[in-house]
């Protein structure tokens, strides 16, 4: 166990050397292809969410193994870990956690910068396209693996002219399914 913890810093250094531009361009090519393949913006948004979900369920394991993060006690803590831990590690940006609902079951992630959208301009014939929707899927998938069922959606988008991008995360319920042994 100790040995694996020691090799972790080397891996995270390597990750940072992937060119940010290459990443944005790759993601852009993905979205452009989806736009060609699917008719409606809704369908494209759904596909992006699905892809994000598949990434999220795996990514969370990667994150937990590198950060040694323990179980979060409540949604507030989960939000902090999501932004300062997850987002920072994989996207290099830390969104601001804001706009908590009075019941404490909903919050927003405000992104001033979004590395996915460098150089991107939305085409005119796709006004409802949620370009970065993959992020919503990733959050949903990752949180589901730690027994939190959430609904995640963009409510503001810089590509549509808003000042910042805002993702709304809504807590639905705690999943009481059996947890894999060894998890804590």
């Amino acid at each position, binding site marked *: 166990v100790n040995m694996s913890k020691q090799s972790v810093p080397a891996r995270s250094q390597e990750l940072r050397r992937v060119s940010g531009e290459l990443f944005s*361009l790759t*993601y*852009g090519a993905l*979205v*452009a292809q989806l736009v060609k393949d699917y008719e409606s913006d809704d369908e494209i948004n759904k596909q992006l969410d699905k892809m994000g979900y598949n990434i999220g369920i795996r990514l969370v394991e990667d994150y937990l193994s590198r950060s040694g993060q323990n179980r979060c006690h409540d949604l507030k803590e989960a939000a902090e870990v999501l932004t300062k831990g997850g987002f920072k590690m994989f996207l290099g940006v830390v969104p601001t956690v804001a706009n908590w609902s009075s019941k404490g079951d909903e919050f927003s992630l405000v992104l001033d910068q979004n590395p996915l959208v*460098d*150089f*991107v*301009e939305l*085409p005119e014939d796709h006004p409802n396209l949620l370009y970065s929707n993959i992020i919503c899927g990733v959050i949903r998938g990752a949180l589901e693996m730690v027994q939190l069922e959430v609904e995640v959606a963009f409510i503001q988008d810089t590509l549509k002219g808003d000042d910042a991008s805002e993702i709304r995360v809504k807590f639905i319920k705690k999943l009481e399914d059996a947890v894999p042994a060894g998890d804590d």
Partner: protein
Amino acid sequence: MTCYFVIVGHNDNPLFELDVKETGKLDDKRQMAQFVAHASLDLVDEAKFLKSVDRFNELSVAGFVTASHMRFILVYDGPKAQENMKNFFMDMYDAFVKALLNPFYVPNTPIASSNFRKKAQVIAKKYL
């Protein structure tokens, strides 16, 4: 003073056109400028990097070929400093590359982005 700038793609198709004029009444001058620009395309290809490529009455043509064989052509009258010309083309090239990085832009098609047009106008004002 007329200035007319055009970006020409691989099939001699114009990808972007910009008129930079100071006086108002320039419709026929514009057509003349377009004609001159097309006529000088062959010469621009020879020019490689940047050269004042042609002269037609009082109109001069400066050309610039990018690494991906896009031709930037500027038709202008009156004297223009080489330095300004060069900077103009470099800034335009910069803006062009940024527009190209948009995943929804298909290379060799007309550039519809209003962002790029705005940038181009600013650059033109700056150097011309």
